[in-house]
């Protein structure tokens, strides 16, 4: 499923056929993926897709109904959370309200009976890392959402876990702060060199931060890959729709590198399908080039234009399908235009099996 080095000893976590049922309903169905050391991996999917459950199984808060969790080659499926070298940043931070910032961060070290001097030193370093120098004695209630977020990260990182689990940690922050924290988290991860397993439903967040994205829906893994792979080569229409905007049309694969859709034959770079297999084609709105009507592969009329800041979003109807186009040059409504797509921007996917 993923390219690159497949030597098992570079895996820090390996999920093997995890299935989880609650009262007979399957929330996770045969989930298998591995996580490499120092990787930033994101579990991405809509709410209820099972991403948080997967994270909780790795953290030890839930037991899988079937399957095994392997951590550095050892089976930890039945190990309680406090015995795992894994720490979690919880969705709503879960900071202890009866302790101040210092006590919160020092919690894990106190449990491990680390000498007081060292605790002081390490907490101070952590506060520096998360830009909260001098906040030791502040109460949790007096902190803003973003600051609480940082304390939660510091509280987890100070224990020097091998893996850090983050459950939608930026969900409660406003857009601007969220963007800042995204870059900050990413650079923090690179600095401390810890494996991050990140859960989010925000595709943009996933694309920005991750080395690898695991797209999930209805308890099943839809695709695993790098952000570029996932964006450019979505495996099915769910992934295509969930990650970014896209035009998805039905078509027929005539032969390798030749696909037919929208009543025309196109060159493409996909192969390995059966002859005349029914497929779906994904074309990103920014990959459609507007040309003069007679020069395009397709012809249509602009039916709507929306200004989106960096680009215009235009809808172009070719008589049977509304194509979504992103372009920096605007064509007014009613204009007849041509549309063409480069072969490498035509993405052919297997047709989703209708349930």
């Amino acid at each position, binding site marked *: 499923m993923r390219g690159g080095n497949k030597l098992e000893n570079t895996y820090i976590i390996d999920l093997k056929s995890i299935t989880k049922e609650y009262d007979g309903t399957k929330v996770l169905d045969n989930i298998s993926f591995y996580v490499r050391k120092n990787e930033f991996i994101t579990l991405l999917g809509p709410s209820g897709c099972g991403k948080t459950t997967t994270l909780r199984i790795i953290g030890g808060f839930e037991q899988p109904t079937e399957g095994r969790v392997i951590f550095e080659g050892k089976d930890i499926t039945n190990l309680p959370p*406090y015995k795992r070298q894994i*720490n979690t940043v919880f969705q*709503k931070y*879960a900071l202890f309200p009866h302790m101040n910032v210092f006590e919160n961060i020092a919690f894990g070290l106190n449990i491990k009976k680390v000498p007081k001097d060292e605790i002081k030193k390490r907490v101070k370093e952590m506060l520096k890392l998360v830009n909260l120098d001098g906040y030791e004695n502040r109460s949790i209630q007096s902190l803003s959402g973003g600051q609480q977020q940082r304390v939660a990260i510091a509280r*987890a990182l100070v224990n020097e876990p091998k893996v850090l689990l983050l459950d939608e940690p930026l969900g409660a922050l406003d857009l601007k702060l969220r963007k800042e924290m995204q870059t900050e988290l990413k650079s923090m991860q690179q600095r401390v060199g810890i494996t991050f397993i990140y859960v989010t439903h925000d595709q943009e967040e996933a694309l920005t931060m991750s080395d690898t994205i695991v797209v999930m829906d209805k308890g099943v893994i839809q695709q695993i890959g790098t952000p570029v792979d996932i964006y450019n080569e979505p495996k099915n229409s769910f992934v295509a729709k969930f990650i970014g905007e896209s035009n998805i049309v039905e078509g027929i694969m005539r032969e390798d590198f030749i696909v037919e859709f929208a009543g025309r034959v196109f060159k493409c770079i996909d192969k390995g399908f059966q002859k005349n297999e029914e497929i779906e084609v994904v074309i990103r709105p920014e990959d459609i080039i507007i040309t003069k009507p007679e020069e395009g592969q397709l012809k249509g009329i602009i039916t709507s234009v929306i200004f989106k800041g960096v680009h215009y979003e235009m809808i172009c109807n070719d008589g049977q399908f509304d194509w979504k186009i992103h372009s920096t040059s605007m064509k007014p409504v009613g204009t007849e235009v041509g549309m063409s797509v480069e072969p490498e921007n035509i993405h052919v996917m297997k047709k989703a099996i209708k349930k």
Partner: protein
Amino acid sequence: MKMKIFSYPYMLWLVIFIVVPLLLVFLYAVTTTENGGLQFTVENLRRFLDPNYLDVLWVSIKLALQTTIITLILGYPIGMIIAREKPSKRNIMVLLFVIPMWMNFLLRTYAWLTLLGKNGIVNYIVTLLGFEPLDLLYNDGAVLLGMIYNFLPFMVLPIYSVIEKIDNSLIEAAEDLGANKFEVFTKVTLPLSIPGIMTGITMVFMPAVSTFVISRLLGGGQYMLIGNLIEQQFLWVGDWHFGSAISIIMMIFILIAMAITSKFDDQKEGSSGLW
């Protein structure tokens, strides 16, 4: 605030039924009519310093403290167990604790008379086993038992409701940071349930220190707690001045107890109430 007008009836209620009676009690406590006419005096309060009376006070406080401690020891695990149950089971368990309180307080206490009496069920079993019947009634133990029985729900319910509100993710966070079940309890659950403990202590200690019904029924006619002393002064001796003085002294003790408990309670929660 236009809504203020709606509070007037309550203000009136407070004044007529709380402020005025309190002032009257205070007035009675510091006056005497012995030589005809109303005179101010501290004699009523001083009379209480008699060792006999101080002994009654001591026994009352001791029993109330014992009751509070035992209900806390029994009540905390009960509250915690209920709070950890599934919601459906939880409601049934809370209901089971509340249902006895729908029954009259006196009746519930009378029930113990028949259980513990010379020919009661307990002694029946004891004699069946071949032992001499026990003197279970009319002693400290019987009074203590009656108090614990009556006041336990007042300890369980506030503790339960505080623990029930503790966010489960805090427990998980502690486990995640390496705390085992015992450490989770001592470092997270217990400190976060202090407000419930303090409410429970107040709600048990106050009625326990001033009860006179339980001690009368289960302790027998001679059994004297401060509540009985006050009752006696008002109803049998007819010395309202001394009775009021004792009431004031008891109130002072309760206020001190409340002040101590709310000191703990206030620690980080911001202010809650009087102190």
